[in-house]
């Protein structure tokens, strides 16, 4: 997994609540058996018209946001389907950080497995960052995972919470499965115990 330490980049504003994973990557793109190549279809139905032409009004189609690496969005981002294709598409587009007042649970977890940092901040602070993002390409935000801060283009600093274990994995690009396999002895002994107490499982 790619490491995440610091990031300074353009933030695209999407002031919409309940952005669901069907919006992020519609189902017709779930038929792939790969993880890569989904970036062109990120937000597909909002981004392209019926003929596949770009809709100029959509934020990621605007010249100033085409290289966005951060997304600032409304409440309950990533709700709905568990599809990991959503973070895969976000990452493939080049976005490494999403800031919103809250995230849906499964999406939130999926981000960390893919080197994306989801940051939940209070609504008022997201409002400030949304305004900042609306300034366009000159307004670069900085995310510092070690220090757990977001710095707006005006230098305003906001602190965020992150689970220490998830932070550790993200900063070091660690593979969960490898870490868990180091605890194989615990799993073995759990299984031995459970085969006595719940043999029907």
């Amino acid at each position, binding site marked *: 997994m790619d490491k995440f330490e610091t990031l300074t980049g353009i933030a695209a504003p999407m*002031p*919409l*609540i*309940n952005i*669901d994973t*069907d*919006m992020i990557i*519609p*189902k*017709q793109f*779930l*038929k*792939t*058996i*790969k*993880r890569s190549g989904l970036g062109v279809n990120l937000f597909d*139905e909002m981004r392209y018209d*019926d003929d596949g032409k770009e809709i100029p009004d959509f934020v990621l189609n605007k010249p100033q946001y085409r290289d966005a690496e951060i997304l600032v969005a*409304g*409440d*309950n981002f990533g*709700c*709905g*389907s*568990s*599809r*990991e294709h959503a*973070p895969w598409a976000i990452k493939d587009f080049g976005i490494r950080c999403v800031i919103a007042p*809250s*995230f*849906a*649970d*499964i999406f939130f*977890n*999926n981000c960390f*497995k*893919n080197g994306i940092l989801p940051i939940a901040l209070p609504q008022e602070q997201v409002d400030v960052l949304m305004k900042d993002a609306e300034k366009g390409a000159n307004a670069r935000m900085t995310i510092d995972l070690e220090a757990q801060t977001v710095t707006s283009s005006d230098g305003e600093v906001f602190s965020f919470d992150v*689970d*220490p*274990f998830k932070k550790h994995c993200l900063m070091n690009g660690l593979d*969960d*499965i490898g870490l*868990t*396999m180091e*605890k*194989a002895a*615990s*799993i073995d002994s*759990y*299984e031995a115990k*459970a085969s006595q107490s*719940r*043999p*029907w*499982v």
Partner: protein
Amino acid sequence: MSPKTLYDKIWDAHVAHEADDGTCLLYIDRHLVHEVTSPQAFEGLRMTNRTVRAPDKTIAVPDHNVPTTLDRANAATMTEDSRIQVEALDKNAKDFGIHYYPVSDVRQGIVHIVGPEQGWTLPGMTVVCGDSHTATHGAFGALAHGIGTSEVEHVLATQTLIQKKSKNMKVEITGKLRPGVTAKDITLSVIGTTGTAGGTGYVIEYCGEAIRDLSMEGRMTVCNMAIEGGARAGLIAPDEKTFEYCMGRPHAPKGAQWEAALAWWKTLYSDDDAHWDKVLTIKGEDIAPVVTWGTSPEDVLPITASVPAASDFKGGKVDAAQRSLDYMGLTAGTPLKEVEIDTVFIGSCTNGRIEDLRAAAEILKGKKIAVKRAMVVPGSGLVRAQAEEEGLADIFKEAGFEWRLAGCSMCLAMNPDQLQPGERCAATSNRNFEGRQGRGGRTHLMSPAMAAAAAITGKLTDVRELM
């Protein structure tokens, strides 16, 4: 011992390792797999020379992509990429030695219908699947939730999941439901009350007389949509109905093992003085038959209401509501009962079980549809066979419904069953998101009986007027 909730009890029974910061390795009893969210996980195993740790606890079935038309054995009914996904699952199931129900098997169906039907899902288990509606299995008092593909790979390789415990939320539905009100109306009404993020960070236990009165099918409908309320999982404590449903299922324990299992299952309930972080109580009598009007499952109203205006809402919901109204092609103030419907879809893991088909057939008996198209997609081959035996299939066909084979179908329209832009659908599924049932398609969620009523009149309809 300090009092515990049902969730606490199941959680405690599955912790294989706990780190100092509370991060746990939770042991997984059943891992369900389907073709859309698993190929990359199996590929990951191959690339790292890992194997499936517990193939006997891993069950796979193709459901999302499969055509549901009668000619589906013909490979030409599938697009190339759908076929590749299903073939990948065939191959992965074989290579890794996991239980498998191929499309040709009568037991094939939607993963969340097949699991309980075959007795894979049992009380007190942990059940995961790369699919958010895994919450369905919570109806058995199993801790069941959706996971992403990286986690699918993690469970395949280690039979555990890295988890932190969620908070406990109790949703109590007191008293009796009124006639015409179903499990679907309960679950939609709860989401209408809490909002789609109201359950975020929680595991919900549904309880109360109205929940106890539901059949296992109804309880599965309620838990299925826990995820639409943002919850990690939904749970209902197992009782005699649960045990009766499980008994004799192909993969349920037998003999002495059954007795041992039953003894433990009977301890699975929330203690009287257990701590709840959040409580919601709704009176069963206050729940009406409901429909959704917008593009979020929280956009719920009684069928007797009118389309709201964006200005009825506050905060970020004002813009979201306006966007929904535009997308849905609805005008504020229009009575919901005047909204005309083009298509009716009865099926999905929310409402594709035998009881759902019975409820719809009851309304349709001797009537004809007044919509352009209507289809019934049974949740599994076995549900389909039973409905044929009970004569329900004939009722549907005579009314003008297409009688399909099992799969997810128009619930998410990954197979050929899709809405056209602007086409309006009365659906028994669980998501009314923009484009969910086909680009530009407009979805109104409701119960099977309400969907059947809409099929007959061609409009959103109060089923009570047809009863």
